[in-house]
């Protein structure tokens, strides 16, 4: 089955929908960092009543959703340089303190974007090595080794349809063996000791079709569910 056919066959999640599914699964009471890209969208789609404290590495704890345009504040942006708000109970801190939270193991979870994730949990998300596109590591290496768990939120394939979940990263690594769960526009996959376990797939997708755009061997969980767009 070609990528083109796959694209015809199913409705992929949008970027906010990927973020929403991850947001739904964040345990209540967690302290969570949202990385640049799809992850920062999670702040806007947090399920009502979920008491999660969002951390932004530029020095915010308790990040709230995007403000209306009239209430934008140039001093209140997140790591993606998008306008955000502060929730009651939120606070500002010095940059090095924001990273003490990360590096000291105080974050329960970080949601990160990826160029590639390998089956063993290796993550590559800071450089393609192409000099026309300067590298940008930002806080990715700090988050990757510092947060108690790493979830990756990403499109399942590159724009050219090539797998982003690979046997071994071709791009330079951000960190080794850190990714525990991947949310894509097609599936929710856990990286377990027994390999990649598919927990959820978008309606209409088959495990074979998903395997066709994924390098490492996938196993479908017995209790797998449909990945429903919220």
């Amino acid at each position, binding site marked *: 089955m070609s990528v083109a056919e796959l694209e015809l066959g199913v409705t992929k999640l949008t970027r906010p929908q990927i973020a929403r599914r991850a947001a739904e699964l964040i345990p209540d009471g967690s302290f969570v960092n949202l990385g640049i890209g799809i992850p920062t969208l999670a702040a806007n789609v947090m399920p009502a009543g979920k008491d999660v*404290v969002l951390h932004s590495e530029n020095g915010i704890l*308790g990040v709230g959703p995007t403000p209306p345009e009239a209430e934008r504040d140039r001093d209140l942006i997140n790591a993606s340089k998008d306008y955000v708000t502060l*929730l009651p*109970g939120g606070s*500002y801190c010095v940059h090095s303190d924001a990273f003490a*939270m990360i590096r000291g193991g*105080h974050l329960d979870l970080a949601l990160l974007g990826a160029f590639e994730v390998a089956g063993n949990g290796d993550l590559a998300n800071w450089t393609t090595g192409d000099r026309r596109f300067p590298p940008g590591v930002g806080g990715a290496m700090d988050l990757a080794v*510092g947060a108690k768990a790493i979830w990756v939120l990403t499109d399942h394939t590159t724009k050219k349809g090539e797998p982003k979940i690979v046997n071994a990263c071709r791009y330079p690594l951000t960190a080794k063996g850190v990714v525990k769960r991947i949310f894509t526009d097609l599936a929710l996959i856990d990286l377990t000791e027994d390999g990649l376990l598919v927990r959820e797939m978008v309606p209409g997708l088959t495990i074979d079709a998903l395997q066709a755009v994924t390098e490492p061997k996938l196993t479908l969980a017995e209790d797998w569910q449909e990945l429903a767009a919220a």
Partner: protein
Amino acid sequence: MPIDKITPSVAEAVQGVKDGMTIMISGFGFAGVPNDLIHGVLDSGAKNLTVISNNAGTGTEGLAALIGSGRVTRIICSYPRSKGSDLFDARYAAGEIELELVPQGTLSERMRAAGAGIGGFFTPTGAGTELAAGKETRMIDGREYVLEAPLRADIALVQAQEADRWGNLVYRKAARNFGPVMAMAADLTVVQVKRIVALGEMDPEAVVTPGIFVDRVVHIDNNREWDI
């Protein structure tokens, strides 16, 4: 479910303290000492404790009482002897308590290192002195540095001024001292505060310890003057 770190009693706040644990205790002199929590530990009966604190207690209550009880077998501090540190002095003279003396700045920097994920750091403090004996040293830009390790604890007992249900803290004047670094450096951080405020009531620019570093908060509204 809303995050709520407010704990109803001292006994519940210190629940989990066990024999053999390492406990950080905030305070410098008599300012910022969590006396109610210390007495909670005393009441718990836990023994064979290691205490990390700048001083070693004075008078008859608080840390002095804990040390006097014989439950503290080791203390890591910078300045154990003060006017009124008789309970410590006696145990020390008798060889009943082990003392690891740490330069004061190294003490809090080691806590910060533990809290910030630093595996070790080089400092010139103590180089060439007895307190650096046996430690790895290195010449950096022509100056001698000592390698110091992070210092963590099982539990940190901290005194602060105000908290909200997320565990955000502000302190008062020089009572701030070791509270913020200890809160970062322990597996379980327990804080006694004089006042609980509603979420959002604290100035977000002025929060000193954000709730991410705090596990339990207990409100102590007595104004007891401890003999310390």
